[in-house]
């Protein structure tokens, strides 16, 4: 396959001008999205350039300890971001989220690198960092949706929870309807996306690999695996978080505590 064609800074600038199209319509319809879009675009540019610099050195050093340190930093940032996007008390979710993210990423990520790819060095930066990164991003978005759905429904539909509990349900049974709703809401988009993949949308990882010079045959196999490992890691991290947070969500009698910030 061919080599990647670099995008010049001039070309990047010209490309960024396309943002004027959404900005025009956001402004025209008074959506209030103009400022967030500009701020978001500036943040994206700065963050991605910084990430580019970090990754350059991570690949250069290629040290497992430094790679793991990077994974810990990703877990910390993902946990903080998830906490800021839910109205839940920090003491309820912080440790469960961090453990959920870390354990799921390590379990699924290393399974993919070690068992599926059979790499000699599964802690190598070239594979470990992007795979853990994509897992973390997907776990973050699905966890935020699922946790918000779970806790909001649990607080709103307390009658259902207590009705089941009072009629002899275990706590696991009484929370099952809420877990079910949370899973449906968080994972339906991913499942719908999976069903139309390749027909309606060509996914980012695959495009990236093809642009990077891989054959489409290799790219589709990676794409399939990426979808499977992101869904697996996301559900594992969600279940771990819910299981670990239960102790602080319910009291010793199974009654719901105040979980949202005042």
């Amino acid at each position, binding site marked *: 396959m061919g080599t990647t064609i670099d995008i010049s800074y001039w070309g990047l600038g010209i490309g960024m001008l396309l943002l004027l199209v959404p900005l025009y319509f956001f402004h025209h319809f008074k959506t209030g999205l103009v400022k967030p879009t500009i701020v978001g675009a500036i943040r994206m540019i700065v963050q991605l350039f910084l990430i580019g610099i970090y990754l350059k050195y991570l690949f250069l050093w290629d040290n497992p300890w430094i790679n793991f340190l990077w994974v810990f930093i990703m877990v910390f940032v993902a946990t903080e971001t998830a906490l800021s996007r839910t109205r839940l008390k920090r003491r309820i979710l912080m440790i469960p989220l961090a453990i959920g993210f870390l354990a799921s990423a390590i379990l699924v990520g290393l399974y993919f690198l070690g068992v599926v790819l059979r790499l000699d060095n599964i802690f190598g930066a070239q594979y470990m960092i992007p795979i853990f990164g994509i897992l973390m991003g997907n776990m973050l978005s699905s966890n935020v949706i699922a946790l918000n759905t779970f806790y909001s429904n649990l607080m709103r*539909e307390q*009658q*259902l929870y*207590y*009705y*089941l*509990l*009072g*009629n*002899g*349900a*275990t706590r696991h*049974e009484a929370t099952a309807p809420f877990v079910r709703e949370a899973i449906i809401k968080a994972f339906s988009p991913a499942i719908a996306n999976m069903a139309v993949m390749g027909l309606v949308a060509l996914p980012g990882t695959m495009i990236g690999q093809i642009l990077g010079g891989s054959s489409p045959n290799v790219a589709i196999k990676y794409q399939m695996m990426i979808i499977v490992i992101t869904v697996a890691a996301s559900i594992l991290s969600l279940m771990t978080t819910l299981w670990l947070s239960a102790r602080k969500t319910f009291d*010793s*009698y*199974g*009654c719901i505590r105040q979980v949202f910030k005042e």
Partner: protein
Amino acid sequence: MLRIENLGIQFGQTELFSHIDLHVKKGELVCLTGPSGCGKTTLLKAIMGFVPPHTGTISVNGITLSPRTAYHIRHQVAWMPQGLSLPCERVREMVHLPFGLKVNRGVSFSETTLLDHFNTLGLEKGLLDKRLHEISGGQRQRILLAITAMQEKPLVIIDEPTSALDHASTEKALQFVQQLAAKGKTILAVSHDPRFIEGCGRQYKISD
């Protein structure tokens, strides 16, 4: 069957009630009465461990309520809360809810028995396939009463089972509850309805 001794409940520094002693034997039908806000519903919730006792003890079938035993006590309880509104689409879905629980696995759900209960309570069979928003509050109360009866639990706790019923339906609901007690179920109810209170074997008044 149910023993409540020296029970006191308080929220923060505010005492709701204290020194409650109530013993209910197997097959008895007891109604808790008293003015609104005196703690009748709270007492029912305390039996299931939803409101922790400040003083005293609660025991069901010899099991004293504690965090460790709350689950075992709830195993023996069929509970119909007051003004229950469940997020179900259809009546059938609401009816089946408790029967999906492990505790009711040994209970074979019989639609014939349910429809018999519907008949006794003056409900039409067709209600089962209706959407929840299509039925009245009184119909919902009687359906919940039927569901509560169908769970083969020794202790039945019902909170205001007739608050949305007319005179004739109240009579039917009362007879239904009396028949349950006659079959050996222990029933603890809360009601403001004079006819229902009068029809219960014993009344226990909680004062302000």
